[in-house]
């Protein structure tokens, strides 16, 4: 089968064109971006996907695990929940399962590359230039402070009612605290945490309150991964 992107392609042996889509190397991407899409127009149906992903998220897609040899994308377009669950380090991450869930917002079992990159894009570092140059009319980039916080907030807010209830807080605490802590202590901690952030007295933490309770924190730095640039 002919290589989709000419000499620099890597996934020449893949059996389906969809596999090609996600097995692009960095050079492939560059060649796509540098060429005026002229000679490649026949593949436009495939490429814009990646291209627009890159524009939207700013991720260097080709660096992601997805595209690595033996990565999920090597076999098919979508990653299943199981693929993520197979990552060993996630099993020892107390929030691992919730983070996996966040890749499957609608409870589905599959995530395509666009969705995958979009989630990861939350963790791009904030570039100072980006902030200066940004068009105020455009929607906030995914890696803005608010969006970073919203990502975290959604990990807490399981029932998606826009509030972290005491119950939800307790669940997260249970995940994150060692077994030495008794249930009672946990409950009191959860109570206290909610109380501390709760300003309108409804016994739950809204996103606004959540943001406020963390206003002193350097979220831009704490929620960024340098290498996701």
């Amino acid at each position, binding site marked *: 089968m002919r290589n989709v992107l000419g000499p620099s392609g890597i996934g020449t042996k893949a059996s389906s064109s969809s596999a090609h889509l996600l097995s692009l190397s960095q050079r492939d991407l560059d060649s796509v971006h540098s060429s005026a899409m002229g000679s490649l127009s026949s593949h436009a149906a495939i490429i814009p996907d990646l291209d627009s992903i890159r524009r939207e998220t700013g991720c260097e897609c080709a660096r*992601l*695990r*997805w595209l*690595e*040899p*033996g*990565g999920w994308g090597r076999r098919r377009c979508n990653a299943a929940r*199981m*693929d993520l*669950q*197979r*990552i*060993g*380090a*996630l*099993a*020892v*991450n*107390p*929030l*691992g*399962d919730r*983070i996996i869930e966040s*890749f499957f917002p609608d409870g589905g079992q599959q995530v395509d590359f666009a969705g995958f990159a979009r989630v*990861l894009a939350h963790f791009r570092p904030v570039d100072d230039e980006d902030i200066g140059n940004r068009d105020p009319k455009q929607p906030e980039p995914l890696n803005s402070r608010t969006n970073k916080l919203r990502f*975290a907030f959604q*990990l807490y807010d399981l029932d998606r009612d826009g509030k972290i209830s005491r119950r939800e807080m307790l669940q*997260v605490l*249970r*995940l*994150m*605290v*060692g*077994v*030495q*802590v*008794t*249930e*009672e*202590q*946990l*409950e*009191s*901690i959860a*109570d*206290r*945490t909610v109380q*501390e*952030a709760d300003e309108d007295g409804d016994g739950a933490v809204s996103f606004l309150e*959540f943001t406020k*309770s*963390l206003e*002193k*924190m350097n*979220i831009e*730095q*704490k*929620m960024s*991964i340098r*290498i996701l640039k």
Partner: protein
Amino acid sequence: MGRLCTLLGPLSVSHGAASPSPILFRELYLPPMHPLLSSPQGSLWKIFHLSHKVTSVVPESALLIVLGLVLGGIVWAADHIASFTLTPTVFFFYLLPPIVLDAGYFMPNRLFFGNLGTILLYAVIGTIWNAATTGLSLYGVFLSGLMGELQIGLLDFLLFGSLIAAVDPVAVLAVFEEVHVNEVLFIIVFGESLLNDAVTVVLYNVFESFVTLGSDNVTGVDCVKGIVSFFVVSLGGTLVGIVFAFLLSLVTRFTKHVRIIEPGFVFVISYLSYLTSEMLSLSAILAITFCGICCQKYVTANISEQSATTVRYTMKMLASGAETIIFMFLGISAVDPLIWTWNTAFVLLTLVFISVYRAIGVVLQTWILNRYRMVQLEIIDQVVMSYGGLRGAVAYALVVLLDQEKVKEKNLFVSTTIIVVFFTVIFQGLTIKPLVQWLKVKRSEQREPRLNEKLHGRAFDHILSAIEDISGQIGHNYLRDKWSNFDRKFLSKILMRRSAQKSRDRILNVFHELNLKDAISYVAEGERRGSLAFIRSPSTDNMVNVDFSTPRPSVVEASVSYLLRENVSAVCLDMQSLQQRRRSIRDTEDMVTHHTLQQYLYKPRQEYKYLYSRHGLAANEDEKQDKEIFHRTMRKRLESFKSAKLGVNQNKKAAKLYRRERAQKRRNSSIPNGKLPTESLAHSFPLGDKDLELSDPEEAPNYDAEETNGGIEFLANVTKDTASDSPTGIDNPVFSPDEDPTPSILARAPPWLCPGEAVVPSQRARVQIPHSPGHLRRLAPFRLSSSSADSVPPPAGPEEPPQPGPRDSTHM
């Protein structure tokens, strides 16, 4: 006090440096030294250790040097002879090997090999650059006449440059240990200091022989020889280390019946690698480093747990002791008027040149490296790297080795080296910590963060680690996959015990250890709870202090938790805050809460992994935590999986397939390799058994899976109990003191014997599941992969996707 013991021990040693076995000698002399411990120095040392204010500002190595200076002064005042000096023999043969072996054996392999290219560049090019520029610049200044009259030539300067150029592993470790920089930065500086030994040795030897020959007689052939000898020395040393590591692993494979001397082999054979390569004039440091790096995996798998602990502690102890001794001796050795020759220009310029050229070298090399590195080394990193170029005892020992006959200005070199060492260790060691703190993000005020910040901050850390893992940005390369395949197919077969090979199946391994840990934790928890009950307020005492024989109905549990919630301060685990109960309740509550969070929040990966520590064996705590989390995660996944699949997989086809597989299994069961894992699988994977039987997660736990099987296994039961918690993931922590496993196992009836049960598992499920390892295969996601990659950290994801294809390459 014990440390001082090792401190003062060698004082008696070097006195008789010619004694055949100083180590033995020292041990023999330890008991009589004990009275010395109450001496002023002893108490001084104690103060150092006790006063955190001092040690948090001044690095230990600097304190030790100062202490050495004081001791040396006392000795000098008494004797007027420098009786004790650090001789190169003692240093190279007895003090250095333990430190380097320790560094190699506990090397975070993945990090090390991941940055090997960078490390090598700094170690080889960087050291050569430092040596050449420092030597040449000093020579240039000498020609200008600034240093006055010296009997010195170009080659002498180059010789001096080569011995002063190398960053010293001992000093780097001692200082960086206390400065907590990120692990990449640490491994680069540390790795460089270890690997540059080969370069130093070669440069030193080459220039020394050149000096001996005289500058007129050096030919081009000699230079070529020097370059060739670099490769011989470095690669030869590495090879020797690998060969001995192979030997060591092989030996430990067959020490099953001589457990008691197992740890001895580790030390003796590694030391042999050092001596051998020293004998062959190869790089001994490289040899012992690689011996440690290569053998760690196999040795740990082969030797018994006790032996492993012994090895760990002995190694750390020896290394700590050796390090202490080295720095003390550096101080003591400096008190000797005979070696001091002062030349202001020479000393000052050396200091300036080594700092400046180090910085320039780092910047240049980093500029090149950053074009290839995924993790960029930023300006801050470069500053720390240049500033962390500490010189130490290696340089000193090398300079003392010089021959006064050949190098006329030996004493000038010696005193300059001492000054350089002292300057880098004391001054840079002192200032690097503030520098690191200052360069890093400005720290917010030192207030106790609010509860929300603390909790969410920790959550963010976990999120970041998870995202890093998912995006797979770190590590993972093709070579590692290839290597792990090779390792699994050949090396492990040769070097590991049969039993170790078998238990290498990741999941089984993890589960086995998990179960063991569970059992231990239960006992500990029970004991702890017994005592805890006394602390609690009398009103709740009766209810909380459950004795182990009666199971507690959940109604009571609820009421207890309710009661306890009413008076939180009474439930505090912390003795200190208990004493302050008289304070206002509000204060105490806050304190308790903060304290609890501080202590028990799981630490995210970045904080604890990959850090080499001379003085700590941190891994245990983390492993425990990992397993705890892993355990919970697996349980949750099993539950969600069960709820998703139970309805689906009931069809006949699956059952047929499953039966066929079982038959296959039975046929294969005579093959030991096929049988054993499945057997242990049945025991150590009780989660699966049990969860599949449980149709309704809320119902009472089902304990007789094992009992009907006839094989009641405590460990299995323990896990089962924990697995019985509610499926939503919000259940009580696994070992929560409010759960009492032992009685409940015996007391609670199996679910299908309960009259009020909602869903009864199918007949087949009841009968077959407990016996069948095969049913795990039917359920695709729980396919056990015996071929999971070696590079995966212990708790590799146990689920395998249903689809075929290469499965072992995607981790990490």
